């Protein structure tokens, strides 16, 4: 088997007395969708934030394509191919949907130390951004300021922004959170259509979505992975049933 795209080795993170990530080892293979599930407080978002570089682990290593990225700042990791979406959408209130994607295209093209040409007239930014908005089904809303987009549309926009960065690995932090049944199904369909183009590490509570998308699933409890395997393996795993799926799912 080839080396995994992302390898997390012995990751360890504490906040004061609380151990949020406890000797976590996990890998994501090229092109696969690996879901990270676990009860609230299991430390899923903490893992994501250590992968993106917003949090520094106390110990352990993160390797992307065999290279140690543990000490790299947030922006440098993005250029190595690590994209993300946020659980709580992070957008710029006065910018339009198109502005957001165009800014991501611009960032992907390299530095932005260009001071004179009007960025909003730049077809080299606007055309690819338009295409991405179409891809996620937001083309009709391109010129709306994000303040007037619905929650579902903002989630779609988050995804379009992430796609503009052409990631090799996309970290999806609860892409279905707060979506209605219809929107949620659309998002699953959208992610399904992107499957294989790049690897995804999917943090999600919506089990239906997880089971339909994920190639492998890891279950995080108390900051450690108690099981990794296919959907069937996970559903059959007695430890998982006790810790997580348990009575609440019955």
């Amino acid at each position, binding site marked *: 088997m080839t080396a995994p795209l992302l390898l997390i080795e012995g990751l360890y993170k504490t906040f004061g007395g609380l151990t949020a990530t406890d000797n976590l080892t996990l890998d994501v293979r090229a092109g696969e969708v690996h879901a990270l599930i676990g009860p609230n407080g299991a430390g899923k978002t903490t893992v994501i934030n250590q992968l993106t570089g917003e949090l520094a682990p106390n110990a352990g290593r993160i390797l992307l394509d065999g290279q140690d990225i543990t000490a790299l700042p947030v*922006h440098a990791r993005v250029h190595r191919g690590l994209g993300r979406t946020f659980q709580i959408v992070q957008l710029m209130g006065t910018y339009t949907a198109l502005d957001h994607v165009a800014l991501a295209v611009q960032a992907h093209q390299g530095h932005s*130390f260009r001071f004179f*040409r009007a960025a909003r007239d730049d077809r080299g930014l606007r055309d690819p951004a338009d295409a991405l908005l179409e891809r996620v089904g937001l083309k009709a809303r391109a010129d709306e300021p994000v303040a007037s987009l619905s929650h579902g549309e903002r989630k779609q926009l988050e995804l379009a922004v992430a796609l503009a960065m052409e990631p090799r690995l996309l970290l999806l932090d609860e892409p279905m959170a707060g979506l209605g049944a219809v929107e949620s199904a659309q998002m699953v369909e959208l992610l399904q259509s992107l499957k294989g183009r790049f690897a995804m590490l999917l943090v999600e509570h919506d089990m239906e979505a997880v089971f339909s998308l994920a190639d492998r699933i890891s279950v995080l409890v108390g900051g450690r992975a108690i099981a990794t395997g296919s959907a069937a393996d996970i559903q059959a795993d007695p430890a998982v049933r006790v810790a997580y799926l348990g009575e609440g799912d019955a």
Partner: protein
Amino acid sequence: MHDPFKFSGKALIAIAILIAALVALPFIANAVGLPATTPLATRLLIYAIAAGSLNLVLGFGGMISFGHAAFYGVGGYTVGILFQHVRIGEPLFGFIPGTEQFLIAVPAAILVAGAFALLIGALALRTSGVQFIMITLAFAQMLFFLFVALKRYGGDDGLIIRRRNALFGLNMRDDLTFYFVVLIVTIGFYLLLWRIAGSRFGMVLGAIRQNERRVAALGIAVYRYKLAAFTIAGMGAGLAGGLVANYARFVSPDMLHWTKSGELMVMVILGGAGTLLGPLFGAFALVTLETVLSGWTERWQLFLGPILLLIILYFRGGLSGLFKFIGGGGK
């Protein structure tokens, strides 16, 4: 469209009228027997440059710099010190010859102020929020006391510049000539600000103000862009300082005092932070109010305060918001 840096036909006409009014102003002032208006208007334009430069960090970039007057003062002293070395006929530090050429002294003021901004920004931008405010203030006060201590250049008393810098054989002593020099520089400066605000750099800067975390997640090294904006803003303040040194033929540590930084902030906020022409309106309003009120009463600040308070409370976009409201162009 929601592009604030693209002007509608109406806005373009308004800008054309504004420029025409500024060109006509000294002639009208002379005709109605108020020749003192021309130097006052010169001072207004210079403040508009200083406030416009602060707006780049404060309004567009969301960095609350409370030490902007430092760069204004450094620009002023650059012109003053270069002139002083012509007068005493001895090079600065033993190798930099003095100059009284406008086209050398003022660009030097821009560069020296920019260098200080780069240095101070590099340290201050490691912090944010209240810490950033305090650090920029502290650096500015350090420079203030440095110039107070520089007895060689007048210390506390300031430095008198006997003649304005020379430019193309123009009679710079003439207030009207000097006004037009400053007007051209001001228009050029605001054109530059307009281009920057709408550029790729400007888009990044505006995004940083609104959501720094998001911008970093796009793979953008936020710190570099903030530092670039801080440096450009310092250069703009240096330009204003270089002009005011020529205008007043005098520089003093007062130019760097924290109250001057505060005044520039008031101009930006009063005019409308993050709007292109806001700082210009703010500078005009503040200096005009000061002039008019201080003509009426010695306790003019007692009246200035409530007026500022009302504008800021009732028009969230400052004067720019007020104009939009009147023009019906707003939402």
